[in-house]
């Protein structure tokens, strides 16, 4: 079951909402309803994987309680982790979570890499790659659980004492599939009883609809009509086709993931739960760091809070080695996105881009210290447009290995960007072309009207939404396609 399925929209969501809000207004009832619903939701992805979720929830709940209990009495800096015992327990619990992720997601990648290396070096290193199904959302779930364990260990939050609240927080179905990455500051929302709010219901429904349009109209059309046909013939078509395709892919990934996020936030709001925002107009960013502050914000924050900051400020030899820290953090991001070397390359590119930007800023600051006119130049429209163009071009081109199935395809596509192919564009019907123009206009309108409240009468708004629904019903059949980020 997924957000777009008729079963979810027609039966599951209305039934769970009715039980949730019409039953006793107590946290126990609400969490119980959500937990059973979430487990049912996960069950539809594959019953074989369900025991892993149950066991891991119990392990992390127990580990959290033990880590909380192992903290010593308050001192001048508050309670401290109780030395070795607490660290060993933390290491064991985190290893359990990461081990589960490694088993499902990275074992096949490791086996195929070893076999490839063995082939190249003519060594008998062949390992049979297991073909287990990757549980949906396991990458997001693992980040959530590891973050919880670290926060409890360091005393940033108390351990969650209620198993029901913890299990509901851990399995909350709107964000199980592809985030936003849940942080421990959400737990209090699962401890208190929630009250229905008309504003939440209205906003939740609207955000779900907006996300639905993003994913199942714009992303679907861009993917099917522009991106997939060019990537499937990488290197054969003209440079224009390749540039349009990679630009289209940037739009597709954004609409797919931001669309999913909007739907998740919207569904959560229907239950009175506020998830973290995940996107803030990333295509307006004027430098790469700003881009990562605006794109998949919950992942970026997680990486900086749990990998970059501890590595850079600890007492190890890595302390203060900012470039290396950035590179490691974004390599981890690439590997988190997918168990393939193309994702590692993509992560490495982001890390390298941030290192280059950091050194450029250092050099520019040097100029400013000598001559203040460089400060004024930085504020000119020309500088800002150039900075924006370089940032966005870098991100768009870096998506080539992210989208390509292999290095070979990435290389072929890159050569296509440089204009090696002969055929102008893939064949496209008038309807497809109109659909594409319509979708690009919607995306451009979304950016152009950001943050503005338009005084559109309710009737006119209803007509516009109705027409969009009719359009989607005709062109976008239900249950078509999967979310890109759900595969991670």
């Amino acid at each position, binding site marked *: 079951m997924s957000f777009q399925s008729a079963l979810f929209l027609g039966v599951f969501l209305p039934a769970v909402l009715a039980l949730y809000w019409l039953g006793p207004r107590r946290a126990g009832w609400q969490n119980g309803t959500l937990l059973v619903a979430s487990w049912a939701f996960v069950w539809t992805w594959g019953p074989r994987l369900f025991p892993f979720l149950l066991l891991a929830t119990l392990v992390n709940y127990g580990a959290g309680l033990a880590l909380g209990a192992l903290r010593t009495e308050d001192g001048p800096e508050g309670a401290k982790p109780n030395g070795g015992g607490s660290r060993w327990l933390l290491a064991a619990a985190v290893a359990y979570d990461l081990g589960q992720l490694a088993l499902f997601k990275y074992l096949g990648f490791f086996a195929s890499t070893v076999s490839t290396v063995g082939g190249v070096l003519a060594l008998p290193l062949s390992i049979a790659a297991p073909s287990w199904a990757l549980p949906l959302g396991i990458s997001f779930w693992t980040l959530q659980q590891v973050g919880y364990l670290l926060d409890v260990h*360091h005393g940033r939050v108390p351990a969650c004492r209620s198993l029901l609240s913890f299990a509901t927080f851990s399995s909350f179905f709107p964000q199980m599939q592809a985030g936003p990455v849940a942080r421990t500051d959400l737990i209090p929302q699962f401890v208190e009883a929630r009250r229905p709010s008309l504003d939440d219901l209205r906003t939740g429904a609207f955000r779900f609809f907006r996300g639905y349009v993003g994913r199942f109209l714009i992303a679907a059309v861009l993917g099917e009509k522009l991106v997939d046909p060019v990537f499937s013939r990488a290197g054969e078509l003209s440079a224009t086709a390749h540039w349009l395709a990679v630009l289209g892919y940037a739009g597709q990934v954004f609409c797919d993931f931001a669309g999913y996020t909007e739907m998740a936030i919207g569904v959560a709001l229907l239950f009175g739960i506020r998830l973290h925002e995940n996107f803030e107009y990333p295509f307006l960013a004027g430098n790469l*760091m700003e881009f990562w502050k605006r794109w998949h914000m919950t992942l970026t924050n997680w990486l*900086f*809070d749990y990998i970059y*900051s501890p590595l850079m*400020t600890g007492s190890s030899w890595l302390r203060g080695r*900012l470039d290396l820290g950035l590179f490691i953090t974004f390599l981890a991001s690439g590997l988190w996105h997918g168990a393939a070397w193309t994702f590692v390359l993509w992560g490495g590119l982001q890390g390298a881009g941030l290192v280059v930007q950091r050194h450029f800023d250092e050099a520019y600051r040097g100029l400013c210290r000598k001559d*203040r006119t460089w*400060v004024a130049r*930085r504020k000119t429209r020309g500088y800002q447009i150039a900075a924006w163009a370089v940032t966005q071009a870098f991100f768009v081109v870096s998506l080539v290995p992210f989208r390509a199935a292999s290095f070979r395809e990435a290389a072929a596509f890159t050569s296509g960007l440089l204009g090696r192919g002969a055929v102008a564009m893939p064949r496209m019907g008038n309807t497809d072309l109109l659909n594409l123009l319509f979708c690009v206009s919607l995306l451009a309108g979304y950016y152009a009207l950001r943050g503005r409240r338009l005084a559109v009468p309710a009737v006119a708004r209803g007509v516009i939404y109705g027409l969009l629904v009719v359009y989607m019903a005709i062109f976008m059949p239900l249950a078509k396609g999967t979310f890109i980020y759900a595969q991670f």
Partner: protein
Amino acid sequence: MDDRGTLRKLIVDWLDDRYLFGDAAILIKSEDMSFLENGILDSLGFVQLVLMLEDRYRIKIDRKHLTRANFDSMNKIISYVAARAVFPS
């Protein structure tokens, strides 16, 4: 200038030099203004600020407090450091 005043000047000078290109006095409109929400400091800057404070005031910022929220405004930074640093008399 008292210790808090000295600390404030140090942070403003550091922000000016590292991030704000001399506009710190204009951009930091109040002592409680969020640095992260208002683009004064990003995650990279947060780490560099922590390193600078640890080195300059010879304090060790505990893992428990190593969150961006704890260093998100002038008041928060000054209060945190002032409670732990030994200022030269």
